[in-house]
C-alpha cells in the first residue's frame, strides 16, 4: 500500500527474478550424489525470501522521511549489537573462529553485520546530505569517515575482512555520488594503494612519485598533503608488519589468490575447483542440477560463497550472462533512482545501496574465477543465508520508497 506513488516495477521485478533464480540455484546446490545438509536449505531460503519481501513491502509503505528519522536509532542499535557481538558472538560455517553470529541458546539467529551494511549506508547518506557543498578537502570528510569507521572497526575486530572491504567500497561509492572530486578520492585511497603495493618496493616507489605529482597539482592544504604522504609511507612500511599479524588462513587466502596452484589441496582447492566447474560448464552448461563438480562435492561452499560457480557449471555462459545482466539492470535502475531522488539523502542512500550490491557482486563473482581473493562475502539474492536476503530486500524496500517519492515517472526504464 504505497501512498501517492507508483511502484517501481522494473526494480521490484528485477529483484524478484534474481531472488527466484537464486532460490532455484540454492535448490540445485543441494542436489548432490551423496546428500548433505545443503539438500533441504532451499526451503528455508524460500521462506526467508517471503519474509524479506514482506519487510520490503513494509518499508516501501513508509516514507523517506521516516527512514531518515530512523537512521540514528538504527545506527546506534547496530553499533551496540556489533559491540555486544565481540563478547558473545559465535562462529559459523567456514569461519568458525570468528564472532559474526548472534546466537541465543545455541541457535544462531543472524549476522548483525549484514544489517549493519544497510544502516551504515543510511547513516553515511544522512551525514553527507547535511553538507551544502561537496567536500573539497580531506579534513572535511572526518564526519562521514567516522560514521563508517566505527562500525568498520567493530567488524574488523570480529574479524570479518569481507564486510570490511564492503564498507570501504560503499564509502568511496557514496563520496563519488556526493560530488567529491576524483583527485580527492584518489588521495583518500592512496594509503590503501600504498598498502597493496608495499610488497614490491619498486612499484611502491613509482606510486609514491605519482602521488607526489598529484598532490602538487591538486594542491590540498599543506597539513593535509603532509599527512597524506606520511600515511602512505606508514602503510607502505607497516604493511609487512600487518602481514605478519594476519591469521594464517587470511595469509593463505591472499597467497592463494596470487597463485592458486601453490597449495592445490588446501586453500587453493576452492578456487581451482570453482574454475573447473565454471569452465567445464561451457556455453550452455551441464543442465540444471546436473553439474558434476557440484554433484560429486568437489565444489566447496556451493550454496554460499561459490554459488555462482553452480550457475556457471549448470547453466553455462548463457546462464551467467542472464544473471549478470539482471544484476546490471538492477544497478542501472538504482542509479536512475538515485538521480531522480527528490533530495540528497534519498539519492545518496539509493547510490549507497547500489554500491553495496556492486562490491558484493564484483568480489563474489570475481572470486569464483580467481579475479578476486577469497573473502567469503555472499552474492546478493543468490547465496544461502537469511540475514543477507533480508538486508538485500530491505534495500529493495528503501529503494522502492525513494523511487516512489522521486521526480519524473518511475515506470520508465530509461531516464
Amino acid at each position, binding site marked *: 500500500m504505497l501512498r501517492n506513488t507508483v511502484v517501481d516495477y522494473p526494480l521490484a521485478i528485477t529483484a524478484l527474478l534474481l531472488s527466484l533464480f537464486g532460490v532455484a540455484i540454492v535448490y540445485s546446490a543441494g542436489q548432490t550424489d551423496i546428500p548433505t545438509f545443503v539438500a533441504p536449505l532451499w526451503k528455508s531460503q524460500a521462506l526467508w525470501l517471503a519474509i524479506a519481501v514482506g519487510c520490503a513491502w513494509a518499508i516501501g509503505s513508509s516514507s523517506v522521511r521516516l527512514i531518515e528519522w530512523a537512521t540514528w536509532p538504527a545506527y546506534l542499535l547496530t553499533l551496540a549489537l556489533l559491540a555486544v557481538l565481540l563478547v558473545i558472538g559465535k562462529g559459523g560455517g567456514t569461519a568458525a573462529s570468528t564472532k559474526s553470529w548472534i546466537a541465543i541458546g545455541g541457535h544462531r539467529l543472524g549476522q548483525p553485520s549484514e544489517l549493519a551494511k544497510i544502516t551504515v549506508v543510511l547513516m553515511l547518506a544522512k551525514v553527507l546530505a547535511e553538507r551544502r557543498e561537496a567536500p573539497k578537502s580531506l579534513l572535511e570528510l572526518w564526519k562521514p569517515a567516522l560514521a563508517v569507521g566505527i562500525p568498520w572497526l567493530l567488524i574488523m575486530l570480529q574479524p570479518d575482512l569481507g564486510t570490511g572491504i564492503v564498507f570501504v567500497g560503499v564509502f568511496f561509492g557514496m563520496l563519488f*555520488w556526493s560530488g567529491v572530486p576524483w583527485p580527492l578520492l584518489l588521495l583518500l585511497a592512496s594509503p590503501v594503494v600504498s598498502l597493496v603495493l608495499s610488497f614490491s618496493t619498486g612499484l611502491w616507489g613509482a606510486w609514491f612519485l605519482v602521488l607526489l605529482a598529484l598532490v602538487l597539482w591538486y594542491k590540498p592544504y599543506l597539513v593535509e598533503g603532509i599527512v597524506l604522504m606520511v600515511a602512505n609511507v606508514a602503510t607502505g612500511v607497516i604493511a609487512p608488519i600487518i602481514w605478519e599479524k594476519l591469521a594464517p588462513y587470511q595469509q593463505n587466502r591472499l597467497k592463494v589468490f596470487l597463485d592458486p596452484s601453490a597449495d592445490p589441496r588446501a586453500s587453493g582447492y576452492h578456487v581451482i575447483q570453482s574454475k573447473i566447474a565454471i569452465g567445464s560448464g561451457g556455453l550452455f552448461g551441464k543442465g540444471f542440477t546436473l553439474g558434476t563438480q557440484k554433484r560429486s562435492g568437489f565444489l566447496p561452499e556451493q550454496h554460499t560463497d561459490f554459488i555462482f560457480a553452480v550457475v*556457471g557449471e549448470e547453466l553455462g555462459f548463457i546462464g551467467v550472462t542472464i544473471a549478470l545482466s539482471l544484476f546490471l539492470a538492477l544497478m542501472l535502475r538504482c542509479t536512475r533512482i538515485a538521480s531522480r531522488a527528490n533530495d*540528497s539523502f534519498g539519492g545518496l542512500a539509493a547510490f549507497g545501496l547500489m554500491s553495496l550490491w556492486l562490491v558484493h557482486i564484483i568480489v563474489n563473482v570475481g572470486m569464483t574465477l580467481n579475479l578476486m581473493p577469497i573473502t567469503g562475502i555472499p552474492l546478493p539474492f543468490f547465496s544461502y543465508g537469511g540475514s543477507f536476503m533480508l538486508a538485500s530486500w530491505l534495500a529493495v524496500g528503501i529503494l522502492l520508497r525513494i523511487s516512489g517519492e522521486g521526480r519524473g515517472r518511475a515506470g520508465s526504464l530509461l531516464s
Partner: protein
Amino acid sequence: VSVHPNDIARRARVASLGLAAIIVTLLGAFFKTQVVQHDRYKLQSQENRLRAIPLPAPRGIIYDRNKNIIAENLPGYSVSIFPPNVDSLRAALAQLSTVITLTPDQVDQAVRRYRRDPNRPTVIISDASFDVISVLEEHRVNFPRLIIQSVPKRFYPDGPSVASFVGYTGEITDADLNSNQYEGYKPGQLIGKGGLEREYEKDLRGREGVRYDEVDARGRLVRQAGPRVDLNPEPAPPLYTNIDMDLQRYTAQIFGDSLQGGAIAIDPRDGGVLALYSAPSYDVNRFTGGIPADYWKTLLSDDRHPLVNKVTQGRYPPGSTFKLATAVTGMQNGVVSLDEHMPVPCTGGFQYGNRYFKCWDKRGHGDISLARAIEVSCDVYFYQLGLKIGLSKLLAGGVSLEMRDKSGIDLPDEKRALWPYAVDYYNKTYGPRGWSNSVTLNLAIGQGENAQTVVNMAKFYAALATDGTAPTPELVHRKPERKRIFQLTPAQMDGLRKALAGVVQSGTAQASRIQGVMLAGKTGTAQTGKRVEGVELNHAWFVGFAPADNPTIVVAVMLEFGGHGTRAAHIASAMISHYLKVTPVTAVETEG
C-alpha cells in the same frame, strides 16, 4: 552536496558506464573460461572424479628345468588409502589404529610413501592377513578412502631349500627410487630384493594395470569404472631356470641343520646350474610382505651368517683343490708332465731355506709322479712343482685360469675371487724385502694369499671336465658362454681326469666312490687358523665331476670349519649319485 541536476545527471552517466564496463569485463572473463578454455576445464572436471587405482601385476613364475615351480603367486591383500594431504593421512592412520594394530614403523612408512607420490594410493599394509581384512571390511563405512585390494603375493613352495638363489621380493626403497636402475618405479611397488628375483627383475616384473573409480570429493566411491577404460595388469612371462629341484631339495636335505657351507652343481657342458645351496638357510617366505624385524635380527646376529651366500659370496682358501691349477699351469708352461717325478722324494716334509714345509701325511709319499701326487695330494711334490714353475709364472697361470675373477654367475653381489695379480703385489704389500720366495710353496698347494668362491672353483673344474674351456655358470637358461682358460692336449686332459678319478678310486676320497660311475675330483682341507681346544678347524673342500670319462655334472662342496675334505667329498658324491641315479659304494674310510 552538489545537487545541481546537471551534476547529478553527469554522475549518473559516469556511474552507468562504469557499471556496464564492470559487468562486461566480468562477462569477458567468463567467456574466456567457459567458451575459449572450455575443453581444458571439461577434461579436468572428468579427471577430477576419477581415482586411478593401480593394479599390481603378477610377477613371472620361476620354474626349474623340469617345470617344477620355484616361485609362484598366491592371492594376498594389501591395504592402502587415498588421503588428500599428510595431516588427513595421519588422522586416518590414527583412526585405523583403533581398529587394527599399526606399528609406529608402519605409520612412518605410510607417511613416507605418501610424500613420495601423493597421487597414488598410499600403501599401509602390503601383505595384510585375512583377520585384518575382515576387521577392516566391517568398519568400511568409517574409512571411505581406504582401498582393500587383492594383490598377488610371492610364494616359494620350497622356501628354505631355494633361499640361496631365488631371493625374495620387497617394497622398493627410497634409495632405489632415486637410482636410474629403477626408473619408472613407484613407491609401494614390489621389486626383487636378491637372487634371481633381483637379477631378473626386468623380466619378472609384470605391467601394472589401472582401474578408474568414480569418487566424490571425499573419496567415497560413487561407481566403479569411470569414463576411462580400465587397463588390466599384464603378468610377466615365466622364467625357466637350469635348476634341478630334485637335486636342489636333496642337497638341502643332506646339509640339514647342522652343516655350514655351500654346494653348487653345474653341467660342465653348458654351465647350467643344477643346484646351488648355502647352509644354514632361512625361510624366504617369511620375507614376503616385509621382513619381520625379530626374524631379521635373528638372521643378522647368527654367527653362521645365513644371509651370506657361501657359494657366491664366501671366499675360502681352496686348499688342495687348487693343486690342479698348479698342475695345469706347470703343464701349460711345459715344466712338468703327468709322469714326471720331482728331485726330492716326499718324506713327510720339505726343507726350503731355513724353513721346513710339512706334507699333510707325515709318513711321506716317496718318489711319485704328478698323477700320483694328485691322487694322494702330496704337498712336497707340489712345493717343488711351484718352485719349478716360478712365482711369476705361477701367478700369471692363476690369473689366466680366472682365479681372481668373478665366475659371472647370474646372481647379484657375487664376490670376486682373490689371487695376487703378479709378483708386484708382494712388493707393494710387504715391501721388496718384506717377503720371501717361500710364498710360492704355499700358493702351489692352495694356501697363502688365495681365496676362492665355491662357484669359481666349480667353474675351473668344469673346464677340467671338458676341454679347458670354462662355461659361465647360469641359473637361467640363456645362450651358453664358454671361454678357454687353458690349452692342453687331449691326452694331457685325459691324464688329469684319470688322476682325479684316482683320487676317488684310490686316493684321498676313496670313501666316496660310486658304483658304476667313475667319479673324479679333489679334496681340499684349508687351514683357517681358527682353533677350538687346540684343534684347528679347517674348511673342507671337494670339487669333482662325473662320470670321469664323459662328465655331465661338476660339483663343488665347501664345509666351513668342516674338518677334512673327505666330509665334503661324501656330500658331493651323494649329490652326484642322486643326480645320476646311481648308488654310491660304501667304502672303508681311509686316512686322508
